[in-house]
């Protein structure tokens, strides 16, 4: 019982950290989605060697640990003259990393748009850019939505790595509290629960969005 009161008592302090966690994850998600929306079509449509370069980027970011990328950006880049504060370094690392994953999600979604949709748009006189913007992207986004939602949830959790370079987000707040109270079990349970609630709410919200943007009549065809 005492533990419960203790946990309830520390929640307000942790919520300050949650706010930073949400900022980091949403901003880096947005950075990732914008980059991915550029990278994916480049990989599919651009002339060589651009697709190869994009592929290299994706492989590099998927094939190395996010923590290493974060350390590289925060501690490594200054030797090249690029000095970022911990908060920006964290957003950059998460954003670039997420862009690699999101680009792959987009690429898959775009490949699922039937060739005939491209033909229809081209036959009407759409340019490649217009075809992408009006025909491919809106449909691909709907296909990609569930996977993108997973990516956002992953980011919320991965943003805890920011604590390593000193960003005071949710996990780091927890560490402070542990150092102060010596009650690691209760504090980290509280931290974990807050992550759980946020991630559950996020996945619910995405489900709502999906049903709002679903294409009427589509389920008939898929079924």
């Amino acid at each position, binding site marked *: 019982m005492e533990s419960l009161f203790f946990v309830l008592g520390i929640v307000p302090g942790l919520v300050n950290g949650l706010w930073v966690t949400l900022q980091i994850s949403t901003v880096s998600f947005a950075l990732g989605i914008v980059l991915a929306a550029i990278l994916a079509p480049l990989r599919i449509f651009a002339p060589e060697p651009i697709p190869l370069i994009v592929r290299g980027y994706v492989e590099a970011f998927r094939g190395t640990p996010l923590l290493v990328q974060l350390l590289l950006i925060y501690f490594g880049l200054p030797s090249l003259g690029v000095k970022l504060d911990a908060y920006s370094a964290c957003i950059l690392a998460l954003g670039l990393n997420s862009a690699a994953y999101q680009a792959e999600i987009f690429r898959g979604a775009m490949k699922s748009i039937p060739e*005939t949709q491209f*033909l229809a748009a081209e*036959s*009407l*006189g759409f340019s490649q850019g217009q075809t992408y913007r*009006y*025909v491919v992207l809106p449909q691909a986004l709907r296909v990609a939505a569930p996977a993108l939602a997973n990516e956002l949830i992953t980011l919320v959790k991965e943003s805890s790595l920011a604590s390593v370079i000193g960003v005071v987000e949710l996990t780091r707040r927890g560490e402070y509290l542990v150092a102060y109270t010596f009650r690691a079990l209760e504090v980290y349970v509280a931290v974990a629960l807050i992550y759980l609630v946020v991630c559950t709410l996020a996945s619910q919200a995405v489900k709502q969005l999906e049903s709002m943007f679903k*294409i009427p*009549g*589509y389920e008939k065809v898929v079924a």
Partner: protein
Amino acid sequence: MNNLLLKVEGLKAGYDGLEVLRGVDLGLSRGEKVVVMGPSGSGKSTLLKCIVRLVEPWSGRIFLDGEEVTGREVDLRKVRAKTGFVFQQYNLFPHMTVIKNLSLPLEVVKRMPRSEAERRAMNMLKAFGLEEFADKYPLQLSGGQQQRVAIARALVMDPVLLLLDEPTSALDPELRREVLDTLFEVARQGRSMLIVTHELDFAEAAADRLVLMDDGLVVEEGDPWELLHTPKSDRARRFLVKIARSAQSVA
């Protein structure tokens, strides 16, 4: 020559090294309605797609409305905006309402203000009795309704030539009728049409000329009625027997 809207000379094309068109010559005058028939794999659909370069020709030349489509300097978007293409599988944009399917190309390709584009789109839908579907999404409609919308979408761009690639082949027999009625109506408006179809009714009653293709070549062409009833070549005769049979089996 001036009256010739479309001229195809020695057109060769194919896929993955397989030659599908083996030197096709074809002409179409302004206002003319030409039906192309032939067994599957004869290259009809490829011919249509080559005209707007949805398939790249290997060799040969294509002229449309006084401009060489196969020319190096050609603006493909302009050529395509001048033609309307109707596909076998309708190919409407499923994430847009019916009216948006018609108005968006006007906005994007013809740079028309939205209100004007929507007005024109609505008028076109009304002309084909499709106005009740304006706010529906394509996949909420039957195949026949979708194909009629696709025809309306091609026409709303006011093309100089309408290309139709087996517009009724994907449809159940009972839905074919409504699309055929629409096609007859378009034909009556005096529009230039090049249509690949097995619909004998349409060929006989609405077409000015019938072209029979086989194995990547034009084997015979002429007045539809004459060609259908007194074909000159054996190939044409065999083919006509075949489609007459398949037409009976669906009817």
